[in-house]
């Protein structure tokens, strides 16, 4: 087992690690992939890790996280409790489940499934061996340089993760649930790399969960590349429920071809420091992308959503809708950046960020930012930060609803604008439950999981005191 014990994270450490393990890392690479890796490590050597002098990182300091010290593994651990990884799947939700433990693919049966309809799904490491041409065509082409070293570092060290390929004209019959569990007895730094290709006229629903089962500190640098072909449809759900000692840098890159359609949902329920880099590039005209985000944070949790939408071609539509409720000492950052390039006429781009602060120690920074080089556009952005509306509160109280319940109802209604957008009914039901529990302070990480997820026999409901009405 190769590990670097509890060292703090520095650029030198990773450059050194790469030098020493080059042979291992590039073992199954084609010449092109090896080249991509070399380029990436050079980029990382130039950029290093971001610090607060960078505009996009000026409110998120990683110093504390870095100094905790982490182990780094270049091979998966041998004993894997598959049961543990899969206990999180959603009841009644008929999905194809694939799992990752500490960034490594784990499987009940085969590492790479090839379904009858041509869908390939499984371990990226395995796919690199088996389908080098396919991987070569897409790997590293969607993830551009996000301006910080994390993506380059991930590309250089990419070993395992999930690979999903939906061929042209194939509609994935059921949602794919990708569960990424972090569970280790020591502090761990992990990097996984996911590559998802949705062909022309194809469709895929992907539910991507990040969970942790204990309170051990972890640092994840996860990069996901998603390519959506012409007229392809991608429904993407990202659920984050991690412990308070975890740091997650999640970078998801979308590339949309002609008339492709994307719906992406980010639901952040818990996590020490969550950083979501969401980057959408319209690579051809007529694309459509809707990004929704909901974050419910308390204690000293920190969530930082950075959305970048690149309107490089005409006639594309995008929207960003992010909402958050911040309690105790939580902090939320929203940075929406829409770039409309010179030739991207008839662009329609909307941004919205709404926040509720419940305490005087919670903090919000919002920067809905538009950069436009073309006059034939419709762009708007809005941002509000405030507290629960007193008039609505009065309305409910007047009808005999207790203060606490009324507050819950209003908060839930606030969050529901995002939850209601979820297209898979079972998933929506589950998220609704989780949001309710989260707002009641019951939901922490899965270790204390008391979820008796709503079933027709035992629905989760608010306790409205009817005697006072």
């Amino acid at each position, binding site marked *: 087992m190769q590990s670097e014990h509890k060292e703090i994270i520095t650029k030198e450490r990773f450059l050194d690690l790469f030098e020493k393990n080059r042979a291992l890392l590039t073992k199954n690479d084609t010449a092109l992939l090896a080249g991509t890796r070399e380029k990436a490590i050079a980029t990382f050597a130039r950029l290093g890790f971001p610090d607060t002098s960078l*505009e996009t990182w000026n409110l998120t300091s990683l110093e504390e996280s870095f100094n905790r010290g982490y182990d780094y593994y270049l091979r998966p651990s041998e004993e894997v409790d598959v049961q543990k990884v899969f206990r999180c799947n959603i009841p009644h939700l008929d999905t194809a489940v694939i799992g990752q433990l500490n960034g490594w693919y784990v499987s009940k049966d085969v590492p790479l499934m090839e379904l009858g309809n041509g869908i390939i799904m499984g371990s990226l490491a395995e796919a690199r061996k088996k389908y080098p041409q396919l991987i070569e065509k897409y790997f590293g082409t969607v993830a551009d340089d996000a301006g910080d070293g994390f993506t380059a570092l991930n590309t250089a060290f990419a070993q395992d993760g999930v690979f999903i390929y939906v061929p042209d004209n194939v509609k994935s019959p059921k949602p794919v649930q990708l569960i990424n569990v972090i569970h280790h007895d020591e502090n761990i730094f992990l990097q996984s790399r996911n590559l998802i290709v949705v062909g022309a006229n194809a469709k895929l629903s992907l539910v991507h969960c990040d969970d942790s089962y204990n309170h051990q500190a972890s640092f994840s640098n996860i990069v996901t590349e998603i390519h959506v072909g012409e007229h392809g449809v991608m429904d993407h759900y990202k659920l984050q429920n991690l412990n308070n000692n975890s740091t997650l840098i999640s970078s998801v890159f979308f590339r949309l071809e002609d008339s492709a359609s994307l719906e992406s949902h980010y639901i952040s329920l818990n996590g020490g420091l969550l950083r979501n880099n969401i980057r959408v590039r319209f690579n051809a005209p007529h694309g459509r992308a809707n990004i929704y985000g909901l974050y419910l944070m308390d204690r000293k949790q920190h969530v930082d959503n950075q959305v970048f939408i690149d309107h490089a071609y005409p006639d594309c539509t995008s929207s960003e809708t992010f909402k958050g409720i911040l309690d105790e000492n939580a902090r939320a950052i929203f940075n929406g950046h829409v770039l409309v390039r*010179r030739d991207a*006429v008839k662009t329609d781009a909307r941004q919205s960020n709404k*926040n509720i*602060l*419940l*305490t*005087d*120690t*919670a*903090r*919000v*920074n*919002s*920067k*809905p*930012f*538009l*950069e*436009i*080089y*073309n*006059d*034939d*556009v*419709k*762009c*708007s*952005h*809005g*941002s*509000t*930060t*405030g*507290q629960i509306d007193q008039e609505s509160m009065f309305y409910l109280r007047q009808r005999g609803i207790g203060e606490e319940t009324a507050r819950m109802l209003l908060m839930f209604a606030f969050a529901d604008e995002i939850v209601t957008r979820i297209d898979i009914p079972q998933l929506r039901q589950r998220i609704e439950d989780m949001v309710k529990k989260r707002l009641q302070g019951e939901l922490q990480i899965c270790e204390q999981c008391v979820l008796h997820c709503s079933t027709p026999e035992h629905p989760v409901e608010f306790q409205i005191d009817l005697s006072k009405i």
Partner: protein
Amino acid sequence: MESQANKILDEVTQGDYKYGFVTDIDTEFAPVGLSEDTIHYISAKKNEPAFMLEFRLKAYRHWLTMSQPKWAHLNISPINFQEIIFYAAPKKKKELSSLDEVDPELLATFNKLGISLDEQKKLAGVAGVAVDAVIDSVSVKTTFSETLSKHGIIFCSFSEAVQNHPDLVKQYMGSVVPYTDNYFAALNSAVFSDGSFCYIPKGVRCPMELSTYFRINAANTGQFERTLIVAEEGAYVSYMEGCTAPQRDENQLHAAIVEIVAMKDASVKYSTVQNWYPGDKNGLGGIYNFVTKRGICKGSNSKISWTQVETGSAITWKYPSCILLGDHSVGEFYSVAVTNNHQQADTGTKMMHLGKNTRSTIISKGISAGQSNNSYRGLVRISKNAVNSRNYSQCDSLLLGARCGAHTYPYIQVDNKSSIVEHEATTSKISEDQLFYCQQRGISNESAIGLIVNGYAKEVLKQLPMEFAVEAQKLLSISLEGSVG
């Protein structure tokens, strides 16, 4: 109203920068370049007390340690500070005691700009406007000083204030914008030559509009002026600022500081019509305008309101801000920024809410045409103690033409639960429906755009004092002339 609109439309057709003339005045210059010697020279020229020289040198030494900021969405060709003349003054023959003694060339210059320095003429009107006229590095004449002094108001050039009211200058200069604030503020603090000083004593409502008119005349010079306005408890003043420069092929530097202090219950309204030479159609020449403007609402219930119409300058870098320190204090920012041809503007505001129940409003209207880039950059910061604070921001951008850029960078930071911050913005072009409607009624394309743009900017223009509003409307039309093909 209609005839006025027609007049504006007429003006549109004439177009071009009409203040681009040069006056032939006998001018004396400081040696080219910047060093401690330059600062000694300026200070000696102005016969300043020791504390001023000390302040300048400290600022200069600090400036040497700084580098030019790069964060703005601006493409600035490097500035060679050793090629600039930091002090240029029309030669004085002797001390002036009345208007008759002002150089007739200077008077003619200001008359040509539409600024009358003749008090008699103005007195015929209902309410006059007191003007401090600044040409290059010095103030040449301040009108109505005597009338104002009857109310206890001090309105004079900064140099005079240094001589006659050193205590006030010492107390307030640098208290809102310290020399360490930013690169251009440090530069200004080191080499500033003149500007206006205004002090409104307790309980006085200034009976007339005060204004400063800045004019760059000499070639190769930079203008570095500094304005300081202090409004004591319960005082009120409305202040206006205008500026023009000759048409030249090289870029000229203008780095100014404006500081406003508003005590309890005081109210200050500051209006600017910025019309520095914007450069020609190919982006040649024009003024580099780097300005630090900031006001502090020191006492409770105080108010500072900024209104700006930005049409000139090759590069504008300007963020008039309010520090809302006093409880219940109010900050306002109304802006219209127009860029055409190759102009670049990065402008906006900062509202720092520190006191309880503070309120701020931001209305910003950006208009970009030609190949220009126009950015709004604004910060709203509600600190932890600023409970029950309120902000409303609206920043709209209008794009005219396919090669221009409009950008908005709103920064919103809220650190308490009882405050409400709202921000909204839209970006669009003039709708084809609106244009069609006008054209159908026989209004030419260009005139229609003038009309629509004026309507779009009306929300801000109505905040301007009468004297300025008319001029600003004309300016809007002229600046956009030829922008639509």
